């Protein structure tokens, strides 16, 4: 399969490579680097998705605060609602404030109490949704202080939720980066073993090159060229596979869920859309893996030659 794909890879013109292409455990190493690149790209993509969703969700939640007014004996709920709306609207940085109607409040309770109940006889807490024009400049503390004048009123800035969400997203991002580092380390180790194996297999070539006056730098360059080529091929195959994976998951998620459910999942977990920065990040796996392969093999070859010459 890989060989069939590689037929489309441009081959080097001119003189034949001094290190034979088939002698560098190429197929096994190519498969390994492809897998490592795929894992790196998927991890990176996952991290990007989580981070983007967390930022978007946090920003959405952060643009809104809620005033809750509990029923208090002797207080008129509608009057308190108007006062709260008025206080909110006069607060700097607030774009708009709107009290939820009784019907809207009942809708919010439906998941817990079910439908068809007449709640008019029961005093239920009412909410005022406050949209902020600029979350960073809004005087939330001032609003909180002013609301003390309204009995039964409390301000919910969703700070605890946002904090929890950010902590969770940060943990996932950190875990992803740790996985990336581990994948990188495993790749380096695999390349070291493959390079030493290739050097041992090609010992005759190394000896002949030494005898005809080749420097260690030249010999390392010849081996590095082969490994760079394998790294590029593996990196590209793995990354393309990862892109297809994300495209497939995105399509499958869209098809499997109804539009409403899909929208809810999208709000909670993002839309499996990597975006341009995510795609660029994943594409960066190709040169990174290729460079990692080339540098590791070069260092290993130089060390091997220093030990043996």
């Amino acid at each position, binding site marked *: 399969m890989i060989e069939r794909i590689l037929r489309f890879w441009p081959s080097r013109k001119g003189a034949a490579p001094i290190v034979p292409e088939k002698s560098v455990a190429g197929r096994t190493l190519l498969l390994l680097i492809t897998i490592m690149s795929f894992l790196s790209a998927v991890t990176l993509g996952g991290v990007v998705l989580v981070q983007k969703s967390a930022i978007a969700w946090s920003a959405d939640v952060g643009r809104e605060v809620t005033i809750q007014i509990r029923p208090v004996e002797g207080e008129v709920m509608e009057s308190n609602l108007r006062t709260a709306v008025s206080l909110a609207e006069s607060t700097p940085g607030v774009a708009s404030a709107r009290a939820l109607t009784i019907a809207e409040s009942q809708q919010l309770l439906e998941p817990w109490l079910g439908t068809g109940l007449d709640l008019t006889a029961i005093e239920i807490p009412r909410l005022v949704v406050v949209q902020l024009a600029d979350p960073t400049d809004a005087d939330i503390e001032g609003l909180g202080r002013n609301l003390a004048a309204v009995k039964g009123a409390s301000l919910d800035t969703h700070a605890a939720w946002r904090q929890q969400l950010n902590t969770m997203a940060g943990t996932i991002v950190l875990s992803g980066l740790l996985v990336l580092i581990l994948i990188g380390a495993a790749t380096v180790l695999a390349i070291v073993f493959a390079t030493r194996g290739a050097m041992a297999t090609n010992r005759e070539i190394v*000896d002949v090159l030494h005898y005809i006056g080749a420097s260690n730098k030249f010999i390392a360059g010849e081996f590095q060229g082969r490994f760079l080529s394998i790294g590029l091929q593996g990196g590209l195959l793995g990354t393309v596979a990862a892109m297809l994976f994300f495209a497939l998951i995105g399509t499958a998620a869209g098809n499997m869920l109804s539009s409403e459910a899909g929208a809810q999942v999208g709000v909670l977990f993002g839309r499996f859309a990597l975006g341009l920065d995510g795609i660029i990040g994943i594409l960066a796996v190709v040169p990174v893996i290729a460079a990692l392969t080339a540098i590791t093999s070069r260092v290993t070859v130089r060390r091997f030659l220093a030990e043996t010459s």
Partner: protein
Amino acid sequence: MIEFSNVGLRYGNGPEILRDLTFSVEPGSFHFLTGPSGSGKTSLLRLLLLSLKPSRGRVTMFGEDVSNLTQDRLLQMRRHIGIVFQEFRLLDHLTTFENVALPLRVLGQPESEYRPNVTELLEWVGLGERMNALPSLLSGGEKQRAAIARAVIARPKVLLADEPTGNVDPDLSSRLVHLFAELNRTLGMTIILATHELPLLDQFNYPRMLLSKGELVIHD
């Protein structure tokens, strides 16, 4: 050009393989290096190739004491020395042309520059028709001629040959030594050819270095 003065060689803590070698080789000369198997011919050639350093004594090549050379200088000096092996040591995946061109490629010459020289040399050694063949398709004699061409393509000052006739029949052996003689005569290359085939030596009137148990017993 080459001077050995009381040179001894041992591998690790083992016994001395070569003892008290003192001789000199003049530029443009041709020497046979002979002696029974195990007498130290290959070890002496490795000293001459600068792939080993003497355990004692002094080796001077091209006017420099080789014991204190830096890696870079050693590499530069090694490029003045060509080597031909009994087992040819051609790279199997490269064609005859590519094998012969290898030393020039190592020196960084582009193919457009070295192609005419390599082609001319291959024709000179009688491999003009075989330059695109892989070593596996060459006969023993053809392989050895390709190996000789590879050893001389970069015009080294010294050409070493370690039993170059060991894998060919007597008639071809003689023709190969004639080829070395021709290189010595036409290019002025200093040649040291190791062989244990005494009948072959008798066909040529070149000075002999006879090694026996690590000592140089004859150097005429």
